[in-house]
């Protein structure tokens, strides 16, 4: 193994990434959840940067830069402003059954590793052992969206899902072709602006960003 230090660093970052998703599953305060999301963006861009340095793939460095700008600077600023304007700063969400969710999460991780292990053997990247972490992040974020009821937290789940996808792409194939990356970045940005519009509309119509209450308005 030519790059033992870098490899263990990337593995460490992968472990931290998994920890952040587990934190998202259990945290009650919305404000803290956005902080966790910022941390996740930081971890993702750092690991992309290291993989880029070691492999010599220049577009990964560029992607690490885009990730940093988008996930650590732009989106958090948008989200924090939103929280501030909607006065959700101190809001607490009731998370049901944290132990059950955690245990389910552990099984999800085991399952992801089982699915990813043949892929890891075939991959030629230096960080091939982490494809399972990427898949686990994707599936755990899915769990976040399922267990959360508030609009803001569901969006954070979606964004974390997207982080998991980027992490998988970096570790399995050194990222996707440039045109795809740019398209994805654009869609995420537009999507987040859309969340903003939705937040205000939901706020106007329902006073509170609670989707559980919305569901009761259905009759059909």
């Amino acid at each position, binding site marked *: 193994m030519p790059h033992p230090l870098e490899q263990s660093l990337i593995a460490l970052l992968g472990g931290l990434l998994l920890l952040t998703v587990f934190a998202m599953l259990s945290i009650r305060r919305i404000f803290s959840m956005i902080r966790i999301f910022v941390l996740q963006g930081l971890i993702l861009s750092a690991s992309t940067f290291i993989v880029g340095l070691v492999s010599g793939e220049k577009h990964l460095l560029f992607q690490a830069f885009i990730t940093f700008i988008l996930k650590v600077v732009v989106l958090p600023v948008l989200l924090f402003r939103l929280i501030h304007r909607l006065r959700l700063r101190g809001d607490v969400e009731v998370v049901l059954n944290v132990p059950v969710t955690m245990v389910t999460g552990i099984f999800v991780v085991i399952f992801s590793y089982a699915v990813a292990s043949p892929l890891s053997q075939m991959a030629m990247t230096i960080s091939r052992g982490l494809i399972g972490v990427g898949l686990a992040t994707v599936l755990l974020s899915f769990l976040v969206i399922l267990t959360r009821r508030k609009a803001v937290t569901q969006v954070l789940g979606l964004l974390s899902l997207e982080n998991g996808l980027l992490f998988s792409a970096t570790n399995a194939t*050194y990222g996707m072709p440039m045109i795809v990356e740019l398209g994805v970045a654009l869609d995420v940005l537009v999507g987040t602006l859309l969340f903003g519009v939705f937040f205000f509309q939901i706020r106007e119509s329902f006073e509170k960003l609670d989707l559980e209450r919305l569901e009761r308005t259905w009759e059909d």
Partner: protein
Amino acid sequence: MAILSMLSIPLLSACLFAVWGDRPWVPRVNAFATFLLFVSSLFLAGEVVQEHRVFALYGQLFSDPLNIIFVILTGLISTTTAIYSVGYIRFEMERGQFGAGRLRLYHSMFQMVVFSMLLGLLSDNLGLLWVALETATLSNAFLISIYRTPKSIEAAWKYFVLLGVGIAQAFFGLILLYFAAERELGPGGNALLWTQLDLVKTHLNPMVLSLSFIFFFVGLGTKVGLVPLHGWLPDAHAEGPTPASAILSGLLLNVALYSILRIKVLADAAIKWPMAGDILLVFGFLTVVVAVFSLWKRNDVKRLFSYSSIEHMGIAAIGFGIGGEAATLAALLHLTFHSLTKSSLFFLVGTASQWCKTQKIAEIRGILVHSPFWGLSLIVAGCAILGVPPFGLFASEFLLFKALIHTNPWLAVVLMVCLAVAFGVILKRVLEMVSGENAPPGPVPSLSRAPVLIHLVLVAVLGVGIPSFIWNWYQGTAHYLLGSL
């Protein structure tokens, strides 16, 4: 050239309408722009007939016998929908539903949805296809929430979150596909070009491709509205404006199913046993059964017909799942006829619910008294969607049954029962709505008759006898889809 002009027309119109979308001339210009689109799609078809495959933008975009069918359909139905939208919007403005800002948003997003569908259909790069599908989701979410009622916002939210999750699964499938393709085609943009993948598809790693197909199927299946991920579809249809429902049912579902087909071609060749087809078959059946039994007790008319869209998508999935030339041909025809019939149905019930100021079936009465043309058209369209001869869906369902009886006779019986149930429920509802005395007030928009008439005449004429060039063309496409197996 035709490809680039087709994409630039809706993109430029979207930008234009974002600024001036509230001017009185905009609805007509909107219709004219989509008409230009339709004309250029015919030019493109001419090029495809001559050259088989036409490329543009350094090979990132292309047109071949498969996608040209859907491109022409998109051109045609977006034109008729834009014509219908003129009368629809006028009515809504008289009711005071739309302000200037909403009008700008509506027209701009209408063109944006058309643009993203065309980009998805025409992209050779599967990554670009993914980006286009995501763009379609985002722009459609704006259309669905345009009335700003609590229900429409919730429907748009549900659409957004469910499809966001779905499309993310498809992206994981894309990563896996790139992972397998990179070994054969080398890293870089070329490894996601469908035409390049088509050349090496038998060498792609079967294990990776089967995983990739499953992820793609979950993601794109959500967009098609296949059970169990169909929850967003009735809400999105019922709460959005009617032109958006017509586009969604008539075109967007097709684009998603088309994307699954592209992946299926690659997966079939790589995996060497019909896993992709079996998955489509199983979920197609599940979809038909669940959709048909959800038709009971629907009291919202747009919801009723959106469940019927789910059912028909299931039928098309069954057709592609069976495989073989006859079934694939039947499924392609089914998608075409369903698009034409279902969008005309949405035009009809959309206007009827504008008259009655409600979408509740129980309160929509007397359409035949109010406007004989509208009432008769609704009966005709209702029969057409149920597969009554001589309409097109009868022909495609007949072909499908013929193929199904050869391969899975028991499933044919199940499908027959489902279709019979759907027949009873929908026909009863349609007859209830057209009959009755209390004629609702409200004008009959004269311009809106044309789209309904065009669709119904096309479906009837093509159902009676498909011209040989269209038949050969569809057969050639089915052959092209399966040719490489």
